[in-house]
């Protein structure tokens, strides 16, 4: 039942959205189904609730978090749910006529229903976390509703303001709720109520209170967070009527009531809530007087009334709680009707500015009458519901135990009474009496009956409650109070007449004072002339702009899109995280370390490397030269590998070096020949300094590692290489067997590199930095000699491949030994010629190579159930030839061979065949004297 109650608005919202093509009336009806059916359900449940039962359901949701889908309909929830649904139904009815024909009604109603659902969920939630969920959902859906007229800047800004403030509060509330959960061990309301002592004794209680109250105060627009509410008035009036009288702002005070049993009763609670309530009460009321916008006045008045309610809950006495609950209901009824009336006025006159309105009582007689009655209720005039709760408020104010607070609260209450009468008077006087309306574009007449009906219904409620509270509202109030205070309710009387007592005198004094104040103020200075100062919005704007400015400036300062800066930070991080902590270890190793002696030839090599490295840096701006010098570094590194027992490495390094030079030269054709000096001297020094630090650190670490005794798994690799890996070149066995998976990844990388280059250059047209005049050089003699070399190179490639498992070599090396001579053919004969003679689809070679490698690895899986890449070995006897040793790893190596050859050739051939741009003219190069084009 409760599930259905809650689901209805959401379901109907979806329905409304999906049935976009139906008439507006149908849409409204569909939308109306939710609150009406909901009310029906609620009515069905009412006897039980009034009888003291608490219908509950609970479904597990995110159990590890303690978040359960628990719904719980106690008196408080029942009261709020009724209010949400009843006023919701009236608002739907009102909105159907309010909305312009051009407006997107389905969207409006869907948002409204979404909000209604969120609100319902919040009041029904039996789990605090769930409550927080729906709480934020109300913020989100109200954002959509306030910004519904999105073409209007005010609306957009108001919506964002509301979302920011209430969203912030929601996040704080979430924190508070989690803290409560940590104290209680559960988020279920019953458990939370039961743990009242624990919560209030917990060290986190102040934090809980701060966070929860932050949520409450923002949502119910308490000072100093109140300023969002007037700006939310940019919303369509039905929205204001709903959100800002009965629902959204009431969510805050609802929560105050909801958590009252758990949080209230401490001094901290009393002082904080009471003072904030009192401040809000006065600030709202004072500001309301000076609003020119009808809805602005109502909004500030709402703030003031919410302050009043908050204050009551702050007082925390049972009677204050009852008064608070009572005022919630009363305020909802008169304020909703006032908003709707304001909407009608706006709708009919085209303005809500009281400076242009006036004398409407003749033009809109019914509306005027209704609005005046509702205003009187707001002012707390006897026979209307507002009077009753105000009276109770005064009574409670006078009974505050603490002396100072009693005086403060009483004075505040009295002042608020005066101010309330004053702004009510202004509302009535400036709108319905006096001169006017001025500069109104439309002809003013009464709106359709169904637009007035909701106002009427609400005003009737105001009257009924005001005149006969015991017959109308008492049971509901009692049930709600029981939801907050538990079964033992205090003695209270809802009678109209309690005899002449201090509260009554205060009321009367307030009324008189208000009248005097209003007319006095008008005499003193022209209320109309007072500029509306949106101080809150101004502050918000300044803050938003400041935050945005800080964010922009900061982000731009940090990430200005400079690669250099990114890399600089990497180096800094390396020094900080990697090199600095190494210092003690380095010092120790320098003390202890004694390396092996080195022959002079070794020092020669060292000098070669150091000199070439230094020269690379010194000459790096002359790119071709730097490239040649780097070649010497590469050669030096290969020689180091040779001397230090790594023939495979030396081979690979040499071959890769050659291909890299080719690559760089190909690229250099499309890059400037020289680097411009673009760094300041200071920056060069800074970079040099950090480079030196990094170099020293890494060199030091290498030294420390080298001079330390080793303890590795290598011995086992050596021992098992021949018997189990069937190869005596252990490095190759590691590559194709022990760590064949690495190699698989490696050739994948290699192949992908080919694909990337292909993808980037295939259609690219790039202008060379310099184009030599004349036909391409034919170099017949070198071509001829290199051609002689080609079959030999093929043979060497095959040799290196076949021997690789036992001697230096292997698929990778062999693949490059095949690719480099072919590259040479490209260089000497031109790419068109080579490709016309050997039309290779290198992409395909990569694919085939990968598949071969994979299949070699997969075969033992499928055939023997052994893991991927498990190697096998066989020595089949062939006639004439004898035993041929075959390791399955060689199949894997074939894959390597193919991918490497295909990848290298794809890269190089693509780079060699870049086309110049189509339309642009080739750059003509002036020839040096004495030379001619051939």
């Amino acid at each position: 039942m409760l599930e259905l109650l809650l689901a209805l608005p959401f379901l109907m919202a979806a329905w409304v959205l999906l049935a976009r093509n139906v008439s507006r009336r149908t849409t409204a009806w569909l939308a109306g189904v939710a609150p009406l059916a909901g009310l029906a359900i609620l009515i069905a449940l009412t006897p039980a609730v009034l009888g003291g039962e608490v219908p509950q359901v609970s479904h597990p949701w995110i159990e590890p978090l303690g978040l359960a889908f628990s719904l719980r309909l106690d008196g408080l929830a029942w009261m709020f749910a009724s209010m949400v649904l009843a006023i919701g139904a009236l608002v739907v009815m009102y909105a159907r006529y309010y909305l312009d024909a051009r407006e997107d009604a389905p969207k409006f109603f869907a948002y409204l229903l979404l909000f209604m659902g969120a609100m319902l969920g919040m009041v029904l939630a039996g789990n605090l976390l769930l409550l927080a969920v729906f709480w934020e959902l109300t913020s989100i859906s109200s954002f959509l509703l306030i910004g519904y007229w999105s073409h209007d800047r005010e609306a957009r800004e108001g919506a964002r303001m509301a979302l920011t403030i209430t969203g912030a509060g929601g996040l704080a509330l979430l924190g508070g709720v989690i803290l409560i959960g940590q104290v209680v061990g559960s988020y279920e309301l019953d458990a939370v109520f039961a743990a009242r002592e624990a919560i209030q004794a917990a060290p986190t209680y102040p934090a809980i209170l701060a966070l929860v109250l932050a949520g409450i105060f923002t949502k119910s627009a308490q000072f100093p967070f109140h300023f969002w509410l007037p700006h939310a008035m940019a919303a369509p009036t039905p929205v204001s009527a709903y959100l800002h009288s009965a629902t959204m702002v009431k969510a805050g005070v609802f929560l105050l009531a909801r958590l009252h049993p758990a949080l209230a009763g401490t001094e901290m609670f009393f002082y904080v809530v009471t003072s904030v309530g009192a401040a809000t009460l006065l600030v709202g009321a004072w500001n309301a007087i000076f609003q020119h916008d009808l809805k602005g006045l109502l909004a500030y008045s709402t703030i003031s009334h919410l302050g009043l309610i908050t204050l009551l809950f702050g007082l925390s006495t049972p009677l204050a709680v009852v008064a608070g609950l009572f005022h919630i209901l009363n305020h909802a009824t008169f304020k909703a009707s006032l908003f709707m009336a304001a909407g009608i006025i706006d709708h009919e006159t085209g303005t809500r500015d009281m400076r242009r309105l006036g004398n409407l009582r003749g033009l809109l007689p019914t509306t005027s009458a209704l609005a005046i009655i509702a205003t009187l209720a707001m002012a707390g005039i006897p026979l209307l519901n507002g009077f009753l709760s105000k009276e109770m408020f005064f009574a409670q104010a006078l009974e505050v135990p603490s002396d100072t607070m009693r005086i403060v609260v009483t004075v505040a209450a009295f002042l608020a009474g005066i101010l309330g009468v004053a702004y009510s008077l202004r509302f009535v006087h400036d709108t319905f009496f006096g001169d006017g309306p001025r500069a109104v574009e439309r002809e003013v007449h009464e709106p359709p009956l169904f637009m007035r009906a909701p106002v009427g219904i609400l005003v009737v409620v105001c009257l009924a409650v005001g005149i006969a509270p015991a017959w109308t509202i008492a049971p509901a109030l009692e049930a709600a109070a029981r939801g907050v205070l538990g079964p033992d309710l205090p003695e209270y009387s809802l009678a109209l007449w309690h005899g002449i007592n201090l509260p009554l005198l205060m009321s009367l004094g307030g009324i008189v004072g208000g009248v005097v104040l209003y007319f006095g103020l008008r005499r003193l200075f022209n209320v109309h002339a007072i500029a509306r100062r949106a101080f809150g919005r101004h502050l918000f704007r300044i803050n938003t702009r400041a935050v945005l400015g800080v964010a922009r400036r900061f982000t731009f300062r940090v990430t200005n899109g400079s690669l250099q800066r990114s890399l600089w930070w990497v180096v800094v991080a390396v020094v900080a995280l990697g090199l600095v902590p190494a210092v003690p270890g380095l010092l120790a190793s320098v003390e202890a370390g004694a390396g092996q002696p080195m022959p002079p030839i070794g020092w020669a090599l060292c000098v070669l490397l150091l000199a070439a490295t230094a020269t690379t840096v010194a000459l790096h701006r002359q790119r071709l030269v730097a490239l040649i010098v780097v070649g010497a570094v590469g050669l030096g590194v290969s020689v180091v590998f040779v001397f230090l027992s790594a023939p495979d490495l030396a081979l690979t390094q040499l071959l890769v070096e050659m291909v890299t030079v080719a690559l760089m030269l190909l690229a250099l054709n499309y890059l400037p020949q020289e680097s411009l000096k673009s760094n300041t001297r200071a920056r060069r020094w800074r970079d040099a300094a950090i480079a030196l630090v990094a170099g020293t650190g890494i060199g030091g670490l290498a030294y420390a590692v080298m001079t330390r005794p080793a303890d590795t798994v290598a011995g086992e690799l050596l021992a098992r290489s021949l018997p189990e890996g069937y190869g005596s070149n252990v490095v190759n066995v590691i590559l194709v067997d022990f760590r064949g998976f690495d190699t698989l990844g490696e050739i994948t990388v290699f192949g992908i590199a080919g694909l990337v280059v292909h993808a980037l250059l295939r259609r690219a047209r790039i202008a060379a930095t310099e184009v030599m005049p004349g036909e391409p050089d034919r170099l017949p003699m070198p071509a001829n000699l290199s051609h002689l070399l080609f079959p030999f190179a093929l043979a060497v490639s095959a040799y290196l491949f076949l021997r690789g498992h036992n001697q230096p070599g292997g698929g990778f090396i062999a693949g490059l030994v095949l690719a480099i001579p072919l590259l040479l053919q490209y260089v000497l004969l031109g790419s068109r010629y080579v490709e016309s003679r050997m039309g290779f689809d290198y992409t395909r070679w990569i694919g085939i190579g990968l598949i071969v490698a994979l299949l070699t690895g997969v075969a033992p899986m499928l055939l023997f159930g052994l893991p991927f890449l498990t190697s096998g070995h066989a020595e089949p006897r062939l006639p004439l030839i004898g035993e041929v040793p075959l390791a399955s790893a060689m199949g894997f190596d074939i894959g390597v061979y193919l991918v490497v050859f295909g990848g290298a050739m794809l890269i190089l051939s693509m780079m060699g065949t870049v086309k110049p741009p189509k339309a642009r003219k080739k750059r003509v190069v002036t020839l040096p004297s004495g030379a001619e084009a051939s």
Partner: protein
Amino acid sequence: MLQALSPHLPVLPILLPLLFGAVALMFERRGIGLQRAIGWTGMLALLLAVGALLAQADTGAITFYLLGDWPARLGIALVADRLSAGLVATTTLLAVACLLYACAGWDRRARHFHGLFQLQLAGLNGAFLTGDLFNLFVFFEVMLIASYGLLLSGGRGARMRAGLHYVVFNITASTLFLVALGLLYGLLGSLNMAEMGARVAVLSPDDAALVRAASGLLLVVFCAKAALLPLYLWLPNAYARAPAAVAALFAIMTKVGVYSVLRVYTLVFGDGPGELAGWAWPWLFWTGLLTLLLATLGALAASTLRMLVAYLVIASAATLFIAFALSTPATVGAGLYYLVHSTFVTAGLFLVMDLIRGQRGRAGDALDYAGPLRRNAPLGALFGIGAVSVAGLPPLSGFIGKALLLDAVPDGYRMWVWGTVLLTSLLTLVALARTGSQVFWRAEPWPADVRPPSPPLRAQWAGAGLLLAYGIGLTLWGAPVVRYAQAAAQQVLEPAAYMQAARERTPQIREPSP
């Protein structure tokens, strides 16, 4: 066949995409239809394999797969525990949506798309599954180089420059990775993470300083990939300029860095008895907080839609660092849930932003001014869902993740974490509200004399919708995911079980190591 393959489950998420990637390359000249068929067949096969793997891991078993039947310390072992299986599953689910989106036409424009896509998946899955540190490097490279291709194929202009940054930065990081690996091998004598962890626990003090240095370098590498302060500067531009489907897939790439930190700094430099135990966590915690703050400011300052999402990606990675750095089962569990959520949602937002871009005509990506927009209600809804989710607002998955994290923060850190997380949530909310307002509310009606853009294709809707639907799924059926994440966290914080599983796993036909 299936029965025969079941012992090989840990290797299948790598092999299948490799195989289908290679096949796609082989038949590249046969047209896009065949390419798509190959891509989707591969995807389907991967889904099945990953599903089975997930089920296996969910039993709590830590499965070691000895490649080449070599003992783990000699060869390379793949390890499927809850953490890696979960991440592989996340990757796969993400990939389905990305592929769907790309099949709306990007795959036609970008050369080798299907091949590269599959190979990228192989790289990602490999990185998550390997138990060997050098092999992790190799798969990082596979993943990265494929990402270069995906990022740059079919691109030009500013994307090239962003690509250059991305490539150079990552190569620098990879070089550093190698340096760290070299040092670690020299000091510890092994590359298998379990073995390394065992050796770290018994280091002499002199060696400890050196190992600490090497692990510091490694941390820099992972943080650079994961885009942690001050190493995230490369990310926003690269991601913001990537084609949508690719940017969406990239949402998991930063998570690889985060994952690596979690894995390596729990297993190798974790809470063992050694003196390096957990040295990295305080660093990560504070930089994580700062990164979260700065990334959120970046989101607030973003001048384009995709830049905004790029910053949100950084923010989500930072949140993960905070969660992991606290290194309690509860925080890590919360982090893992958040990881899954943020991957899907940021990816989804990339796609949504791309859809929006397509409907804005010349205004495109720009957030600085409100261009015209071809009205599209579902688009707004998708944006809304994504925004609510990524800001951590109820009721979607981001909220659950954040609530789990806030709930789990230990006492001493509560103020810092709560303050930062809540504040950044709010700022994110502000940024997104501003964005939505700018794009949808301030939009001018489509000018009559300009031909309106065509509405998004069905595959595009499906891709973006699927990702956001994952998020909703994580919300509605979040409990099992949270439970899985918490169990995974428990498992990953107890390296002893991992090491024991490593010891117990022996080769089938070979002698185990002494």
